[in-house]
């Protein structure tokens, strides 16, 4: 459903992506792995149109999306959850959700606040609380819930486990598996191999703006040389 080929992107004047390419199938969880600064976040931002790619092709369900505005890409059914969470701190939980609300989409699970509160019971108990008054873990749940309100088919999750307590990280893993069981495709960027291993079907490794490895999670776990070289574990 997502095909990326020869993606090149600059961040300011630094050339970050040097021809990234990989593809994802429907209902798949793919882990985009690599060190800090390897280009994981930039890849996601380039797909989303937040960092305009200079060259390359991104095809989502038959639509070429390079050069489109972020809001158009979102409307095609790609949801983006940024690393820094970026909840609207002065808006309540309900308002945060309402900003992202989009009409029902063919071929994607349909989300309402009530359905999301079943997935994230904590949020249901703080509907009127401003986003800024929530803890880091709660904000992480809110930002995912908010993105789901757009009824995406594909969700880009940038470093979902970063800066979270181990118990919350476990909860996050369960959430991702729940989304997968709804039929959603999920691309996560991750440095934590334990976490990626517990949710992803396949992994692709990016290093210095190039893809260096693509394979199933089991293949990655078996390949000590690749892990040592690119993930420094």
């Amino acid at each position, binding site marked *: 459903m997502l095909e990326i080929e020869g993606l090149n992107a600059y961040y300011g004047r630094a050339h970050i992506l040097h021809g990234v390419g990989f593809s994802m199938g429907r209902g798949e969880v793919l882990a985009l792995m690599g060190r800090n*600064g390897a280009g994981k976040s930039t890849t996601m931002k380039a797909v989303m149109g937040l960092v305009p790619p200079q060259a390359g092709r991104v095809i989502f369900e038959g639509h070429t999306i390079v050069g489109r505005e972020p809001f158009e890409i979102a409307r095609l059914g790609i949801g983006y959850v940024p690393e820094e969470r970026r909840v609207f701190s002065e808006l309540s939980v309900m308002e945060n959700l309402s900003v992202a609300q989009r009409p029902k989409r063919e071929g994607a699970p349909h989300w309402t606040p009530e359905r999301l509160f079943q997935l994230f019971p904590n949020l249901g108990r703080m509907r009127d609380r401003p986003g800024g008054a929530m803890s880091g*873990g709660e904000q992480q749940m809110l930002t995912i819930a908010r993105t789901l309100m757009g009824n995406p088919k594909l969700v880009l999750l940038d470093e979902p486990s970063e*800066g979270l*307590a181990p*118990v919350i990280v*476990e909860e996050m893993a369960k959430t991702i598996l729940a989304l997968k069981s709804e039929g959603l495709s999920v691309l996560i960027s991750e440095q934590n191999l334990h976490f990626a291993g517990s949710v992803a079907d396949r992994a692709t490794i990016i290093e210095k703006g190039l893809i260096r490895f693509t394979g199933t999670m089991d293949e990655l776990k078996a390949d000590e040389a690749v892990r040592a070289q690119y993930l420094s574990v």
Partner: protein
Amino acid sequence: MTPVLEVRNLGKSFGGVRAVDDVSFSVEAGKLLALIGPNGAGKTTCFNMLNGQLPSDRGEVIFDGRTITGLKPREVWRLGVGRTFQITATFASMSVRENVQMALISHAGETWTLFGRAKDRHVAEADALLKQVGMLDQAERACGVLAYGDLKRVELAVAIANKPKLLLMDEPTAGMAPRERIALMALTAEIARERGIAVLFTEHDMDVVFAHSDAILVLDRGKLIAKGRAEEVRNDPAVRAVYLGSGATSGGH
């Protein structure tokens, strides 16, 4: 041996919620003490009270034999408390060396000098510090273009420029690759031992915490719920329930 830092019954409330509630602990020279706990447990609040960024409601902070409660961050720094931040904070328009020189200039009380090039001051001392953190070969580069892990090491050099007795590190390895994390904390531990610096750090990476701390404090909802060596804390059922979980996603800790 008297501790470098002693915290007694520290407390802080925000709108009736006790963010930090009756917390006491101490750190000794050359030791690394880890402060862990769920998000929103009060770790950062605690840190901000230690270096004077936030006033405390209750309790006392004793550093090097004197009470520092109520002092400003600048004054706390002058007494010998260094700090690094969760998100790296360096001077982007200066080179790596100039970042360290800036700290040395401030430490030497030369901030108000209006003449003479800042670039020519404390060069040898700055280079010695950069050598210690392994950044000497990048001394001329701008901080704005450095890789994240390197920035963290520059921060470390800046933080120890005033020869602190205590170093406060807020999530020092956040955003780094696993092996870089271990390497940075190994470096920190080495410097701490060599210079007799007491280190207090918060961290979410259990590999780092269990490998590089002499003792661990666990904070939950503002209260200290456990305190001790790695094995004691790891096997504490209360800590497992509120923080560590089953260990499935954190490498079996």
